[in-house]
């Protein structure tokens, strides 16, 4: 159960192997890896800013909510900060539960919240200059799925 914010690239396969190891009682591990997109040449570099101490605490709060809601045994969130090249992994989420449905849904839930509620500021640098990115309408409607009674 941890949140890692790091500037260095990470290898999602290695994270998944480590997360899955030694789980005789788990039954299901789901994971998601998000990659930085080139946007058809529109983005050369993605720059992601976090507020250490606040960003990680907020992600942990979101993940603890997911753990409680879906009865997770364990979870891991690794997020890049700083400058990220297209094709590089930007986020990795893994969830562990007794049965598959909870692991899948918790992973989906975590990503929806990360995309719309996590305190990051994201800037795209491309041939036309730099621009700040804000959550899309799709990001907002995706997270609302989990808030309906």
């Amino acid at each position, binding site marked *: 159960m941890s949140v890692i914010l790091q500037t260095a690239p990470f290898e999602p396969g290695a994270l998944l192997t480590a997360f899955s190891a030694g789980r005789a009682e788990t039954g299901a591990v789901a994971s998601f890896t*998000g990659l930085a997109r080139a946007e058809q040449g529109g983005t050369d570099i993605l720059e*992601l*800013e976090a*507020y250490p*101490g*606040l960003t990680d*605490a907020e992600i942990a709060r979101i993940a603890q909510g997911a753990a409680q809601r879906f009865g997770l045994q364990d979870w891991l969130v690794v*997020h890049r900060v700083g400058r990220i090249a297209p094709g590089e992994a*930007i*986020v990795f989420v893994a969830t562990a539960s007794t049965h598959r449905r909870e692991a899948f849904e918790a992973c989906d839930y975590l990503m929806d919240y*990360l*995309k*719309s*509620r*996590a*305190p*990051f*500021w*994201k*800037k795209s640098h491309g041939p036309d200059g730099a621009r*700040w*990115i*804000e*959550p899309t309408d799709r*990001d907002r409607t995706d997270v609302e799925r989990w808030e309906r009674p």
Partner: protein
Amino acid sequence: MARVLLFGRLADIAGWREREVEGASLADIRAALGADAMLAEALIGKGVQVAVDKVIVRGDGPVAAGSEVAFMPPMSGG
């Protein structure tokens, strides 16, 4: 005196990310930052949140000496 941090587009507008600012309340700090009219306007913009010592606060209340005050524009998400 507080350590003021600016995030995202606010840092671009101000041309700095971190600065010591005189003031015993958020109102004082906003007033001190008001010397830069563009920044002052951006700080009251839609969706800008303020954190004192890494906790999001509302209003313009007192700020203990040595606190860290962060102005955060609308978040981009991960």
